[in-house]
């Protein structure tokens, strides 16, 4: 067990000790899940094609916990399990809806960025690669850039357990550790790469074992525990900012839904959300908040209702925006 694990266990044994802003983390997770629920409604209404969305239900704590530790000018390369990362990093909800609706309200002004190419440099969202694993070297390059420019910005690179097996990780992780670049590699291990299980595809059961091969710490956490995520990423960010280089964090979670909406999931036993409840990061945070008496059930209901209104307003605004005209296809290719 690494030092980080020990520290983490200690903090979890005494939840009141952690500095995690639990109320804020809960709010962000509810916003992520509520946003996704509204997107699914767009799909059932026929506004958005279902097959290109990879729902993130169950993963909310990773995005919320990690991004809460970051500054506005820190970078993220997100993965395409849900839209939690970009929501937590501060991309306006309307812009994210607009990207799915393929209209000019989107962050990409109508390019139909969907789950892969939402971007917003003003909050450090650098976009994403549709070829899995190509984000690794780009994240290392962004971290190189902050060192070169003499800032202390860090870059968090989120990826799934499936992508963990891609070759670019080796080149990027080697360079990042060699040069002590401020990167935090966060693997969201939900056990499945579409229909292929981790057991079928991966040489080690514990992905953090790979960290030693690059001379960086590896920290395995319960990715449904938002406090654990916040604490582990905080420590990794502090380490990165002071010039001690990258950390590999593996956060274990459950993927509540299929890979895409409409996935038959013939490869695994289907479970209802209720059956996932012990692995539901939002339910878990709710229990903890009650236990610590940070909010009452009534407070939480009020918060949920206010977020529903916020999401609905964003949905209505986004839906009203027009699709771009043909000229859009020729814009933005060259400066």
């Amino acid at each position, binding site marked *: 067990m690494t030092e980080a694990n020990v520290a983490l266990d200690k903090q979890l044994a005494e939840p009141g000790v952690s500095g995690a802003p639990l109320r804020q983390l809960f709010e962000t997770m509810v916003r992520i899940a509520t946003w996704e629920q509204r997107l699914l409604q767009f799909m059932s209404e026929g506004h958005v094609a279902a097959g290109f969305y990879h729902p993130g239900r169950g993963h909310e704590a990773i995005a919320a916990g990690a991004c809460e530790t970051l500054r506005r000018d820190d*970078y993220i390369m997100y993965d395409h399990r849900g839209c939690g990362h970009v929501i937590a990093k501060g991309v306006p909800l309307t812009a994210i809806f607009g990207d799915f609706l393929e209209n000019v309200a*989107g*962050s*990409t*002004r*109508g*390019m139909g*960025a969907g789950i892969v*190419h939402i*971007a*917003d*440099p003003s909050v450090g969202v*650098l*976009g994403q*690669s*549709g*070829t899995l694993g*190509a984000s*690794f*070297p*780009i*994240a*290392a*390059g*962004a*971290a*190189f*850039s*902050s060192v*070169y*420019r003499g800032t202390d910005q860090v*870059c968090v690179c989120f990826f799934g357990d499936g992508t963990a097996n891609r*070759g*670019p990780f080796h*080149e*990027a992780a*080697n*360079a990042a550790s*060699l040069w002590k670049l401020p990167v935090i590699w966060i693997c969201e291990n939900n056990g499945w790469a579409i229909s292929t299980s981790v057991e079928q595809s991966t040489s080690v059961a514990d992905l953090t074992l790979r960290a030693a091969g690059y001379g960086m710490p590896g920290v395995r956490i319960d990715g449904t525990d938002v406090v654990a995520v916040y604490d582990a990423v905080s420590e990794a960010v502090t380490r990165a900012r002071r010039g001690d280089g990258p950390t590999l964090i593996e956060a274990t979670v459950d993927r509540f839904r299929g890979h895409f909406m409409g996935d038959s999931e013939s490869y695994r036993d289907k479970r209802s959300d209720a059956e996932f409840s012990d692995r539901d990061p939002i339910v878990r945070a709710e229990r903890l908040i009650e236990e610590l008496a940070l909010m009452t059930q009534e407070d939480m209901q009020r918060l949920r209702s206010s977020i529903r209104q916020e999401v609905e307003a964003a949905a209505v605004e986004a839906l009203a925006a027009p699709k771009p005209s043909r000229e859009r296809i020729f*814009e*933005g*290719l*060259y*400066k």
Partner: protein
Amino acid sequence: MTEVTYEARQAEGASTRQLSFAEAIREALAEELERDEAVFLMGEDIGAFGGVFGVTSGLHARFGSRRVVDTPISETFIVGGAVGAAITGLRPVVELQFADFAAVAMDELALKAAAWRYMHGGLFDVPLVVRMPEGAIGGAGPEQSQCPEGLFSNVPGLHVVVPSTPADAKGLLKSAIRSDDPVLFFEHKVLYKQRGPIPDGEHLVPIGVADVKRQGDDVTIVAWARMVQLALDAAERLVADGVSVEVVDPRGLRPLDQDTIISSVKKTGRAVIVHEASRVGGPGAEVAAVLAEHALPWLAAPIVRVGAEDVPLPQSAHLEQFVIPNVDDVIAAVRRVMGHA
């Protein structure tokens, strides 16, 4: 577009500095490193060692290891990392040790560098230059001898630049470094030691503008990189036959300066396209198609393409010479379009 001819510049060369192609590239790199703090170099063995072809020699000593960065053997990281640096405010100039290694970093070149700005709605600049030594040098084999620029003609978002003279190399590289778009910069290895005149002072050559390297009336040869010298040598030898050859160097394939090529062929009525890459599916096909679309009624003879045989480059230097085009091949092609074959 420049009105100065190749001969005029050669004559002028007597009174200007002479540099080798490699020295011209080094001078461009040094000037841009000096001019802009955001510019840095990254690649394998490019630091104190100076690169396997010596192109970056002395730059590490002058600019230090922050600006001239030796990397692990990691083409995917070199290009992908450069994309990450470029979208966050730097201007990386990276070297792939051999242009053939583009295949290793193809995703990074064709889908990341090329498409990052477009697929993210134009939100990012990608001011990135990838320098790639290319071409057959006698025995380097199929994975260290190719001229892969044609592969990237089909990749929107990139600029593809292929200089043939030291002056063009310097001026085009400086323009490439100042561009906010990704530029693939191909340097033929045989040219590295060839010398030519370099204009004094700030010298910039715009990307996507062809240069007429020799004026003529009967045949247009479109050629780039090392093939320009072959075309000029062929033109010189064909004077004896009474054939007047014009040599057009597009100096790059993307954007392709169609206007200069088309107007030259409309003038001469005959076209020969010469490149070192394989003829089948090679970049000459695009040039031929442009001419077929825009200049067919002006053509007095079918277009002829000269390129490598349709095989990988053999490792044997002896066999290599039978694969890539030589001056005799160019002369034979010109005679064919002249009806003398």
